């Protein structure tokens, strides 16, 4: 009986010592891990911040490229519009010139100018942007577009 109790005591003491050793080593390991953890957290924060900076650069780079592409696209469309405008301006000039040319040689029995002057037997000699050159029984006269009556201005495409 005594031997058994002694053995039991020995086992208990050994178990206690073993647990104490294990406990001690686990505690030391925990302290070390906690220290490392703090350093790792700092590293992780720094790395995250670095990653964010790189991602931001890349995003900005993409945004710049996209904006440049937008500008180019709009400029291209604007170029096409300018071409269309140029074609229309040419066509407009052609129509105006043809209309004015068709009136050369025409004789107007009477023409009242905006300043009240009345002209008779007016023969159109020349019509251009600067106005009309007409021949009258008394000689040749230059009539400015603004001196022409409204209907004549419209007919000859003199915009006000």
């Amino acid at each position, binding site marked *: *009986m*005594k031997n058994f*109790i002694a053995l*039991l*005591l020995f086992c*208990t*003491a050994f*178990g*206690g010592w073993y*647990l*104490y050793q*294990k*406990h001690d080593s*686990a*505690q030391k390991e*925990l302290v070390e*891990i*906690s220290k*490392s*953890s703090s350093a*790792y*957290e700092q*590293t*992780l924060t*720094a*790395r*995250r*911040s*670095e*990653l964010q*900076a*790189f*991602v*931001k*650069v*890349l995003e*900005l*780079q993409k*945004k*710049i490229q996209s*904006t*440049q592409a*937008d*500008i180019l696209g*709009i*400029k291209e*469309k*604007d170029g096409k*519009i*300018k071409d*269309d*405008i140029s074609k*229309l301006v040419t066509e*407009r000039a052609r*129509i*105006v010139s*043809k*209309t004015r040319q068709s009136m050369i040689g025409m004789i107007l029995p009477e023409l009242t100018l905006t300043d009240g002057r009345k002209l008779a037997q007016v023969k159109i000699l020349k019509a251009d942007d600067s106005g009309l050159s007409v021949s009258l029984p008394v000689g040749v006269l230059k009539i400015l577009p603004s001196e022409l009556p409204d209907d004549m201005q*419209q007919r000859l*495409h003199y915009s006000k």
Partner: protein
Amino acid sequence: MKLTSYFITAVTVSLSLASVSCKDFQDIQSQRNEAKAKLEAMTAEISEIDQKILALKQVVPQGVVSESTALKQGEKYETALSLLEEELTKTIKHYQESEVKLKALEQETESLRKLSNF
């Protein structure tokens, strides 16, 4: 008999103490495992971020090698982007004006065509 009784008491106390120690040890062990797992997760995240940074370094402009250079480049890009956005606004405005001009000219030319019967 008395000695036996003392021994039994001693054994009982020892066992109780062992049980408490065992519980404490288990707690510490669990805390240690938790901390270890956290540390491993952080290590994995750091490694993942490092790989991402390495991949990004291939596509970002030359000279951007660290956080400070990336921040400087970011500032430059922000300025450039702001200028480009201004230019874009102006270009859009110019384009809209051109569109209005074209429409007006189209109408004018159309009426000229009708008037002149061309």
